[in-house]
């Protein structure tokens, strides 16, 4: 078993799927060179017909992917930054999301839209957002946000094989992070969370980079006598409610942690779900740790202040315990 970076795990997943299924194609801006490295080298193996450097047209990339899918191809489209989901929003939220429904299931829509999300590079309000919350609402989409190289590999393979459009959220800060990825092929089903740490006092639900921070916070809290259960959601739509509700039934307390903004965030949806389905087991109101409702600031210091930190997660857990 080798330790490989997150980007290499994504690369391997795409290369294997392309090898096994010639309908899988990759498209996007600068995907041949690979802007963040995930798609680098694929063109050398699979040729320019299957690794398409598109002109700069985000709505076109998403719209064209739908056209490809209608013909039976399985496109893996890349939007260079998650912020650009908004440039492609009609094609994502109105078109590809509804296609399976509109055609009565006649036309599968096996599209993956990969993107780089989040801060850490201090490049400002239009290149640093986590936009996944905006796409919880349109029906027909799935949303995946892995936190490790291991999961990135297994989830991307499942996403490529899925017959509905999947938004695949990759955090920029994870790209270079190595992780163990077994040599033998494996899949991680969409819709399965992972319990990263067992605990009995509070449940913390996180995904992507926030999982690592939640684990750090839980170690600190352990020293202070607080036992935290950390769940990595991995897939936001469909959400693994069973794992979440079982944990809340045990702890009676829930803290959601996300890098995106609080209002209308993913945490809001999860809190409402838990309230509807596990109100009886809640010993305290659900706490949401999230970014304030402001644009992502571009200075490194200001950006760090904006993104939830280990101390702010500890603060959230303390609030849930109070």
């Amino acid at each position, binding site marked *: 078993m080798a330790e490989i970076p997150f980007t290499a795990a994504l690369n391997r997943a795409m290369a294997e799927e392309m090898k096994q299924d010639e309908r899988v194609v990759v498209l996007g801006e600068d995907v041949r*060179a690979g802007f963040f490295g995930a798609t680098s080298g694929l063109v050398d193996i699979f040729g320019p017909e299957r690794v398409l450097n598109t002109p*700069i*047209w985000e709505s076109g990339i998403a719209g064209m992917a739908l056209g490809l899918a209608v013909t039976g191809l399985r496109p893996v489209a890349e939007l260079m930054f998650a912020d650009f989901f908004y440039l492609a929003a009609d094609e994502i939220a109105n078109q590809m999301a509804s296609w399976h429904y509109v055609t009565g299931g006649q036309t599968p829509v096996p599209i993956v839209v990969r993107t780089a999300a989040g801060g850490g590079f*201090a490049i400002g309000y239009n290149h640093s957002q986590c936009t996944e919350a905006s796409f919880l609402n349109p029906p027909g989409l799935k949303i995946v946000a892995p936190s490790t190289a291991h999961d990135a590999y297994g989830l991307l393979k499942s996403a490529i094989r899925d017959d509905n459009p999947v938004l695949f959220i990759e955090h920029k800060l994870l790209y270079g992070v190595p992780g163990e990825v077994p040599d033998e092929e494996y899949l991680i089903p969409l819709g399965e969370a992972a319990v990263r740490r067992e605990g009995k006092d509070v449940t913390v639900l996180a995904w992507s980079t926030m999982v690592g921070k939640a684990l750090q916070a839980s170690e600190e809290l352990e020293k202070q006598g607080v036992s935290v259960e950390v769940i990595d959601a991995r897939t936001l739509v469909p959400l693994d409610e069973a794992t979440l509700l079982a944990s809340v039934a045990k702890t009676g307390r829930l803290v959601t942690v996300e890098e995106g903004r609080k209002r209308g965030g993913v945490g809001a949806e999860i809190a409402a779900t838990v309230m509807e389905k596990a109100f009886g087991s809640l010993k305290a109101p659900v706490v949401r740790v999230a970014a304030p409702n402001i644009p992502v*600031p*571009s200075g*490194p210091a200001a950006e760090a202040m904006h993104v939830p930190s280990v101390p702010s997660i500890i603060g959230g857990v303390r609030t849930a315990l109070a």
Partner: protein
Amino acid sequence: MPVTNLMTFNVSRMEVMDLDGNVDAGLMPDLSPEQVAELYGIMVLTRRLDERMLKLQRQGRLGTFARVLGQEAAHIGAAYAMREGDWLVPAFRETGSFIVRGIPVERVLQYWGGDEWGQHFPEGSRVLPVSVPVGTHMLHAVGIGWAMKQDRERVAVLTVFGDGATSEGDFHEAMNFAAVFQAPAVFLCQNNHWAISVPYGRQTAAASIAQKAIAYGMPGIQVDGNDVFAVYRVVRDALDRARNGEGPTLVEAHTYRMADHTTSDDARKYRPPEETAYWQERDPLERLARYMRRKGLLDEAREAETLARAEAEVDRVVAAYEAFPAPPPDDLFAHLYAEMTPALRAQRDALLAALGEGE
């Protein structure tokens, strides 16, 4: 029914100065020797600043930014053709245009340094800040142009963008609107032949960007973008037409990105060195210097003096940039709404309290 020729089009390209600095007297714009020296000074300053910014970035004193090396004639010549009251709506590779329009260029460094205040320009400057999202700003430019027309101001808007940006729908939408509504806009494409790792020919199948104007019903012209006189002349004429109510123009400045895409890129991975060498011979600054030497406007002493002045100004700019105080945390919240909402105030107070605890 015969097949008739519906229309025939010509697309022209203008060059005023050859590689040795000889100019076509008939096409040469009427710039005084002082103006030529000023243009030269700004080009030298821009290049020096670009080099210094690279150093600062490598030292961790500046964030990722887009260098302008090799494109000085295009975006400086164009901005120099603007008049008082005109608007500049830039993309992100126009450092010299800001200098021409009198923007304290330390603000531009501040922007690339990751401080929102770098987007605050002096009141009334009619220059929009750096815009990194590719293409979206062209729509703002036509909005401004249309508004100016309604106000009966005899001014024009110059918007600048790259070859890659012409693939975005925004480019086509903006061009279409500007032509239909005769908005006083000049679209300046700095065709530097690359969009990150994607070459011009993979962005468009058209032989020129200029010819795209025809489909929208506006004039389009290509200009040697490394010839500052040609750029100045073509953009000046286009801005005049716009101000006179004769509508928009598309100008393609044919140039080359001599540096990497940004400081996080390595162009050697995807560009042939011969190509860069070809364009090196067309260096816009050296070409202008050759002209000036021929005309007796530049000798070693004046060259050294221009360089020294540029260096001093770069020192001043960097010092001013580094002296900007870090914005207070409160700033993150203060400017989002004209009047802060109660919920936002609560978030601000909570964050400030948490920061206070951390100290």
